[in-house]
């Protein structure tokens, strides 16, 4: 099992550009999550999904969009990138939501210049 994979590992964007961060898990987990971690800070929940076709906002959803068309994939879309979106983005998945531990991907380091 590869677990949770994220692509790309690193990316530099110019202000106003858009991009999609990919996240795939092969553990057949229903729940998936996107977090951002700013330098020296904790994790902030952006969006999450409790199953294919269902998504919900987290603490900091502005400037982002998500979709969940399959159990395995949970892409995060950044529209009109801004310097405030410079961060490390982590995708995670779990079997049963709040009852189980989350498994994290390796992260995507995004810089917006």
């Amino acid at each position: 099992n590869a677990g949770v994979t994220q692509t790309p590992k690193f990316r530099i964007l110019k202000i106003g550009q858009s991009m999609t961060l990919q996240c795939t898990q092969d553990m057949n987990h229903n729940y998936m999550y996107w977090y951002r971690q700013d330098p020296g800070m904790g994790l902030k929940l952006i969006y999450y999904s409790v199953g294919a076709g269902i998504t919900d906002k987290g603490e900091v959803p502005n400037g982002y969009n998500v979709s969940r068309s399959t159990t395995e994939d949970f892409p995060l879309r950044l529209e009109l990138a801004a310097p405030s979106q410079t961060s490390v983005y982590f995708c995670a998945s779990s079997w049963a939501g709040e009852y189980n531990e989350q498994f994290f991907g390796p992260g995507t380091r995004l810089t917006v210049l």
Partner: protein
Amino acid sequence: AQKVTQAQTEISVVEKEDVTLDCVYETRDTTYYLFWYKQPPSGELVFLIRRNSFDEQNEISGRYSWNFQKSTSSFNFTITASQVVDSAVYFCALSDTDKLIFGTGTRLQVFP
């Protein structure tokens, strides 16, 4: 409201010292789960332990131990005889509907 407080922002110790990382939580739920994660300098997040609210027994795993006390709403993490490899940011988390609430983390630096 669900809340996790890790009041210690940063702790520095010398190798072989024991160190305790504090975690205090607030919850409206009678059944809940608590978690600890480690984030080493390489950046990945590593799951360490899960504890449910009905199990107040302390847990020990090698040099790591966890003390869960419902009376004080705390779930503290102790590293015995710390090593340089324990240097990391440690996060405590609390279950919430469909997700986890993370604390702000404690950065532990272990010096040789």
